[in-house]
């Protein structure tokens, strides 16, 4: 992905030199032209066309913000409610992510999700131990994490 972005900027610079006009707007024009060129030549790269990754990153950012707001609402509900009748506890979650930065991102996302907080990552990086505010629906939470977060992170690193 980084290689394609570098190549795209290089094409934009070459476009600027061809035009002999060194302004931001000619850089942008060259960048858009480079996007078309790279899209046309996408079968020569090992990885897919990098605009898909950019879209995946933006999606992940939106998920981050949405989860932050939802988690705040759920924590507020627990704090404000007159009786403390939640059932906290620690559950484990197997993850299929492999690289370190992916696991860090997943842990950050889980910490910002409604009612969950990562306590430890096992030594072999395969299991996350998560403290949950309310354990009634652990299976549901596991399912949600797998469905939404892991998928979104995998989409970014593909």
């Amino acid at each position, binding site marked *: 992905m980084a290689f394609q972005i570098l190549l795209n900027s290089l094409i934009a610079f070459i476009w600027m030199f061809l035009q002999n006009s060194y302004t931001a707007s000619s850089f942008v024009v060259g960048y858009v032209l480079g996007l078309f060129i790279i899209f046309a030549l996408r079968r020569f790269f090992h990885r897919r066309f990098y605009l898909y990754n950019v879209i995946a990153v933006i999606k992940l950012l939106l998920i*981050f913000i949405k989860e*932050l*707001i939802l*988690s*705040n609402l759920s*924590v*507020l509900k*627990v*704090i*404000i409610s007159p009786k*403390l009748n*939640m*059932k*906290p*506890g*620690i*559950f*484990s979650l197997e993850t299929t992510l492999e690289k370190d930065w992916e696991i860090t991102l997943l*842990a*950050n996302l889980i*910490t*910002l999700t409604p*009612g969950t*907080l*990562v*306590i*430890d990552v*096992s030594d072999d990086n395969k*299991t996350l*131990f998560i*403290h949950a*505010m309310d*354990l009634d629906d652990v299976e549901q939470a596991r399912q949600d994490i797998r469905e939404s977060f892991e998928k979104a992170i995998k989409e970014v690193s593909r």
Partner: protein
Amino acid sequence: MIVISKILIGYLILQGAILSLISSIGILRLPDVYTRNHAASKAATLGVISIMLGVFLYFWLIEGHVNTQVLLGIVFVFLTAPVAGHLISRAAYHTNTPLWKNSVQDELKQAKKGK
């Protein structure tokens, strides 16, 4: 336009202040380290972020001055607050701080025993 932005800014700053207040109530009220950490690391994060967003919008829309340092501050808080929450609760767990008595299960203990 000015009126709308003033309402928005006022709402953001009030929301941030109320969230911070509620998270501090949560720190007083909740029973153990881990549940308190939930309140501290989440509600306080969104509270601080909305106050900073309100400040940014105030100086941008009313005073006509764009301050990117506030935006960077938002990004830093957003990235570091969950890590801080994770590290505090991890340190608490590994120094054998007990869970609340009503806690239901503890799978990390089984995993540690198995080692």
